[in-house]
């Protein structure tokens, strides 16, 4: 589904990704772990299409289609979803207004009919109930004054409603207490399906207790330096990243 091959990317002339390759199959939950500064967030931004990154070589293919020339919104419409580590606040724009605009913008780009208001409201209600997102939160401006846990639940709500092909979760566990973590993980697990993939970026093994991965990859100094199954996560928890940091250097 997602094929990243020998990806090199710079920001402000500094190379952050240095020949990173990663292949995620449909239905797979792949975890990326690694020390601070290894370029994990950069990887998520480059895949999602954030401006300011200069891809100097390599490729990113989604279901066989090169996405590197696409704008972030085109990638979103193709099915890439990034759950932000620090979701942005958008003052003056109610969450409902934003959700409707996002869902319909993607549908429009795919040549689909826009949602009717009753259909839209029905979908939001159903998803919000499951994630413990209150009506009050939906009426408030997007993420403004939300707690860390509320912002992460809002990210998962968006993911549920936008039904991506591949969802990238960038440190979604950071700043979450155990109850919020469970709610978020349940939301993700409910979305697991044979035709959807996940890329779970995390610093700690804790999240992977709740979202059990099919594969675990260690990223260090802008490359994937080791891949394995979920046991690799346990090993990292025990031994830390020092072996891999040394490898990369």
């Amino acid at each position, binding site marked *: 589904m997602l094929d990243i091959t020998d990806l090199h990317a710079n920001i402000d002339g500094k190379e952050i990704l240095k020949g990173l390759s990663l292949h995620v199959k449909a239905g797979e939950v792949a975890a990326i772990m690694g020390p601070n500064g290894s370029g994990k967030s950069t990887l998520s931004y480059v895949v999602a299409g954030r401006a300011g990154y200069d891809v100097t070589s390599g490729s990113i293919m989604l279901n066989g289609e090169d996405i590197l020339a696409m704008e*972030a919104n085109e990638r979103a419409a193709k099915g890439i979803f990034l759950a932000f580590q620090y979701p942005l606040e958008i003052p003056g724009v109610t969450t409902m207004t*934003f959700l409707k605009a996002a869902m319909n*913008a*993607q549908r429009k780009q795919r040549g689909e009919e826009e949602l009717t208001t009753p259909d839209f409201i029905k979908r939001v209600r159903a998803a919000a109930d499951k994630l413990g997102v209150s009506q009050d939160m939906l009426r408030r401006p997007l993420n403004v004054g939300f707690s860390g846990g509320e912002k992460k639940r809002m990210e998962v709500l968006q993911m549920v409603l936008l039904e991506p092909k591949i969802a990238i979760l960038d440190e979604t566990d950071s700043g979450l207490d155990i109850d919020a973590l469970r709610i978020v993980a349940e939301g993700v697990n409910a979305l697991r399906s044979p035709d959807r993939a996940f890329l779970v970026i995390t610093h700690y093994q804790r999240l992977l207790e709740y979202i059990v991965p099919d594969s675990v990859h260690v990223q260090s100094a802008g490359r994937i330096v080791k891949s394995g199954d979920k046991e690799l996560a346990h090993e990292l928890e025990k031994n830390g990243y020092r072996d891999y940091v040394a490898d990369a250097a």
Partner: protein
Amino acid sequence: MTPRPPAIRTKAETALAESFEQNRATMPGGDALRGQRARAFDVFHERGLPHRRIEAWHYTDLRNLMREAYPITQGAPAAAPASGLRIIIRDGVCTLPTGAPPAGLKLTTLRDALAGASDALIHALFPDQGADDAMVAFNAAMARDGVLIEIAPGAVIDEVIELDVTASGDAPHGDISRSLVLVGEGARASILESHAAPPKVQRNSAMIFAVGAGASLAHVFETCADSPELHVSTLIADVGKDARFESFAFVSAGEVLRRQGFVRGSGEGAKIALRGVNLLKAKQHADTTLVVDHAVPHGESRELFKTILDGEASCVFQGKVVVRPHAQKTDGGMKSQAILLSDDAAMYNKPELEIFADDVVCGHGATVGQLDADQIFYLMARGLPRAQAEGMIIEGFAREALEFVGNEAIRERLGAGLADWLARRAS
């Protein structure tokens, strides 16, 4: 004191002085009023058009912007609006609606009111606030007409009182009007002041409010699609004990607009709120200069202005809050925020606090920035094309101020105006 301008008489100043001389004999009103006008004209004559060395006009140099003064003309009255609570002031001449106003509301054309004006009315119509400003003085000297709106004590006027200030004809001309709103104790009303004009119009308009104890007045100022080329709009308000005065400005049209407000809380517990949205592009220039004067204790004031600038547009926010020595427990908050969409746009923010009491809470904040790249990416990553993402952020930014417009119908209409401005920007 600001330094006096050199005694240069520009072509425009000379023309304005001549128009006063031509008109003074035919002005409505008796001797007292004639004396009042002559004194006002002296203020203008001494000062001339405000220019950059006058601090309050530093960023809007009228001497430079008004190279030519268009002839000030009086037109024929407009046809009376058959329905609704709509007052028309066209080419400086007031026309009242034909229908009977709701109970508690009295409308009089200013020309009629001036014919037998009492000293009290003259005093209310020519307050000391802003009287030493050259353009306020010129308005006082020259205004023949406008509307007198009287709201009886305790009256609640649910229907919005609409005041359409407009002009006719393609020939360049100037119009002048002055209107007075007297809100009785405990009364409640709202006024929508809309400004329109053909392309070549210079306007000097003044709205004067006296809000009685416990009364509440909501005022909205808006520019229409075609607005005056040059407009000096003055708002003067005196807010009584426990009274509330709110004014909101929605500015999206016109080439040069100077809005100046002189608002005084003269009764304890007076609440003042001045807010607005400026949407400017091309070479538009809008200046909001406010003086909020807390004369007595327990007053509250809020200013919130949101500005979006594109092209080579420029905007000024000068907000002065004065807290007099006895005005303890004053609560003041002032904020001006601007987003620049273009490298050639300019925002001038000058908040000022003059506090002479020691037990007050007053704050101000001014920000100028560009659209936030992180916010844009966030929305694009959810599927919104760049233009739509930018539009949503700008709209949200402006809506934070718009939300304060209490009347739902007006709020929605202004919201539609905002969306329309954004759509035209994107296209």
